[in-house]
């Protein structure tokens, strides 16, 4: 499957419109990542979704850089958030697991 990469803030749903509609999900693959990065299937429906939202198209490399920078910052934040005497398991319970690298498809 080929993909397109774009940036657009997820505005959710209003009484008349949805950021991602039910029928969108039946017509093309879409996945969201940190930094408002959206990976959409490269077909006519995915292309229309990008156009409908005036999303800013990125190359895969540009999109990956945005995601990686945010994940790296989140890792640093996680590493620096410590409580005296806390075990590794307790830290994971408190904060969640340490953020992991994301590789865009």
């Amino acid at each position, binding site marked *: 499957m080929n993909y397109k990469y774009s940036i657009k803030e997820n505005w959710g749903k209003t009484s008349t419109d949805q950021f991602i509609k039910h029928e969108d999900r039946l017509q093309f693959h879409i*996945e969201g990542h940190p930094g408002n990065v959206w990976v959409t299937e490269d077909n006519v429906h995915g292309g229309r979704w990008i156009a409908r939202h005036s999303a800013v198209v990125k190359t895969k490399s540009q999109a990956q850089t945005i995601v990686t920078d945010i994940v790296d910052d989140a890792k640093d934040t996680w590493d620096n958030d410590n409580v005296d005497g806390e075990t590794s398991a307790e830290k994971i319970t408190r904060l969640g697991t340490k953020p992991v690298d994301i590789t865009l498809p």
Partner: protein
Amino acid sequence: MTTYKVSKGTPVAFRDSAYPTSYPSPNEGELFYNGSSGAFQFIGVGGGAWSSGASFPAAYVGRGAAGPLNASIFFGGITGGSVSANTELYNGTAWTETANLNTAAFMFCPAKQGTQTAALAASGSINSADLARNELWDGSSWTEVGDLSNTHAYADGAGTSTASLAIGRGPNPNSLVESWNGSSWTEVGDINDGRYFNSAAGTQTAALTFSGAPGNPPAFTANTEVWNGSSWTEVNNLNTARSTGGGFGTQTSALMVTGYTPTVIANTESWNGTSWTEVADVATGRTRPGSTGASGAEGIIGGGQPSGGASVEEWAFAHPVKTIDVS
């Protein structure tokens, strides 16, 4: 009444309005002329899918939730680095802020069959300590009610505000289950595989628990157990073992959504009372979301780490109705 008119040999349905999008539709695949709008329309192939819901007022992690998709209540969670007491109601289109919890907390053991007028926020954590306390929602305010015997933070719950279960417990995996009768908690039969960060569905007498951390994190399991009111029985596993995901529904119709594997996944599985089947993914994979739903046919998931943020997704079955431009 539907009538048919022949246009160049091809029968086309005639209606004075669009078909409803309810699922399943006997008219799937049908081309019709909508006499009201004056347009040709097509009712497409339907199915279950996630679509965007109205975003939370802010980014949250670890919210409690109860009720069906379009009449749900979400409470607590971590937002902006602080534990929150915020409570919001969802009507399928927008969130309405209402009275706060008395104690800010997150990672509850909520009775997800509760409603917007009768919900239970059981256990939870305030980060520095885990709670055995509980709060009852009556539609306008939260009131503290009888304590659990133990904390059940980082686990999950089933049932209603007057008849519920707190299943499993953290921060170390535990088999303990407690039952609420509306005024007090009683310890009942343990689950077979102790865990926390699990998900649950169903009622006080017909519950289901699935996924979770059977050891210190980052552990995860595919194990599923059903409760008949007196004991737990292991049944068919999830296809993908995970912890810290969302889950909701009934003992015979439930959904497992997202989680940690040890990567964050968007995977969704549907339970039909016998086995799990992989269905459509959410758009944004997440851990520690808030989630609730009446059954495996409809539900809602919101917030979570690492990029759930304020985003909300809704699970429903429907048919797309497409307008055909013939100009």
